[in-house]
């Protein structure tokens, strides 16, 4: 039971509040921009985020990552490099993992998007989340939502028979091995260096679901 006397403000609420105040201070700038040729262009997009239909009116420049974090307050998906190099923003769209920072929200009309919040929750962890906890697949945790979304999709890719750079025989079904997992997870960087534990976590889930 959490202590009732302390105000229950989670880290997530704080982040969301911070984003809201940033938006408030940014609005005069947006108004200035509106007066010149570089005025923001708004567009509507409807998609399904973690099973829930959502319709947003967004600046066309908004990435899927910023739509999730800044507009839907789903701050589980992280912004790392914002250039597709680190994988912290990985989400699953129509069953496939992508870098949400390198995709415009308006290009996802009708898409089904799954973020870390959609995979599981503290009281009902996804098996991959549970395995990351069990195997210490993180230290600071910043890359973890991306790692987990990526890992879930990797096992589906192997199941679907998609080969990788290290698959010895292109025409055979790929296997779950440490070498395969390391190659397939290379788009997710972990600055704390929890890689070996991440591979152990994924291996365990693969064994359980094989």
């Amino acid at each position: 039971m959490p202590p009732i006397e302390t105000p229950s403000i989670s880290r997530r609420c704080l982040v969301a509040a911070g984003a809201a105040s940033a938006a408030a201070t940014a609005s005069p700038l947006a108004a200035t921009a509106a007066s010149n040729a570089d005025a923001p262009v708004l567009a509507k997009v409807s998609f399904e985020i973690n099973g829930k239909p959502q319709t947003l009116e967004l600046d066309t420049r908004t990435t899927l990552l910023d739509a999730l974090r800044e507009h839907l307050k789903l701050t589980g998906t992280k912004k790392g490099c914002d250039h597709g190099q680190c994988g912290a923003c990985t989400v699953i769209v129509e069953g496939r993992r992508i870098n949400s920072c390198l995709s415009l929200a308006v290009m996802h009309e009708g898409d089904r998007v799954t973020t870390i919040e959609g995979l599981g929750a503290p009281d009902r962890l996804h098996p991959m989340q549970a395995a990351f906890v069990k195997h210490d697949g993180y230290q600071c945790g910043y890359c973890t939502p991306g790692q987990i979304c990526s890992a879930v999709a990797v096992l589906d890719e192997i199941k679907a028979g998609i080969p990788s750079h290290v698959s010895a025989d292109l025409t055979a079904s790929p296997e779950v091995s440490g070498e395969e997992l390391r190659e397939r997870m290379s788009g997710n960087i972990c600055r704390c260096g929890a890689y070996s534990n991440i591979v152990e976590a994924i291996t365990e889930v693969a064994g359980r679901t094989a």
Partner: protein
Amino acid sequence: MKAFTYERVRSPAEAAAAARKPGAKFIAGGTNLLDLMKLQIETPRHLIDVNGLALDKIDKTPDGGLRIGALVRNTDLAADKRVRRDYAVLSRALLAGASGQLRNKATTAGNLLQRTRCPYFYDTNMPCNKRMPGAGCSAIGGFTRSHAVLGTSEACIATHPSDMAVAMRALGAEVETVKPDGAVRTIPIADFHRLPGATPHLETALAPGELITAVTLPKPIGGVHIYQKVRDRASYAFALVSVAAIVQRDGSGRVAVGGVAHKPWRVEAAEAQLRRGAKPTADLLLSGAKTTPDNAYKLTLVERTLGAVLAQARA
């Protein structure tokens, strides 16, 4: 990022009409374009989303080859059973590039059209003839470990970053396009990418508004297919040097090299030397090379990588 208007198109005719708008640019996977838009290296005023054009199929051609739709994702092209069996060098090249997340988004046409990763092209504080024609080249006289050694000019020494295109060059692929006026044409991959010359900002043979619709592969030629990529780390890095090779049982074959020029590098005359080994082949392949102290190693690396590939093909 600069503001832009956005439109989804459903037919090549709609795409062509949209392409006439000022500052218009096509977007498919967007993995390279958005990266460059964030840095304001690309500043389109109108984005035309071509993902609804139904160009995402791989079909057999009448002459026994494959027609790969422009929107086929890199993951799907690499995993296609026919590609894995008959054009393995292409699967291997695709799988050696980028990350799983990026391959899920990146398209066949977009891969061909991706821009150089020259660090001076990306650094908007430095002059670059690609970004600003006539500004000068910061790479020349700069740090050039990753730069081109063949086909360079006084204006640009950037390399083309694609792995896929190197395999397609070895396979003799052709690029099918449609122009805004509806005219269609086929461009051999050898002529698709340009050398920098005095106009390094012009990177392909495409006319303004011209849209890639497909890439075709000729009928399979058999042989052992190898794509050997040498890079700074084991995965998720651009090539320092790469070799795409198709070697026949009699030792003859085809070789294209990546990481050395503004386009995939193939010299048919050098291939006649393949049966004599890596050294005579590399000598011809690399003739005319211009190196800096930073990137002269690439000549040795090409020869040795080719040697390793030929040994693997014989094994």
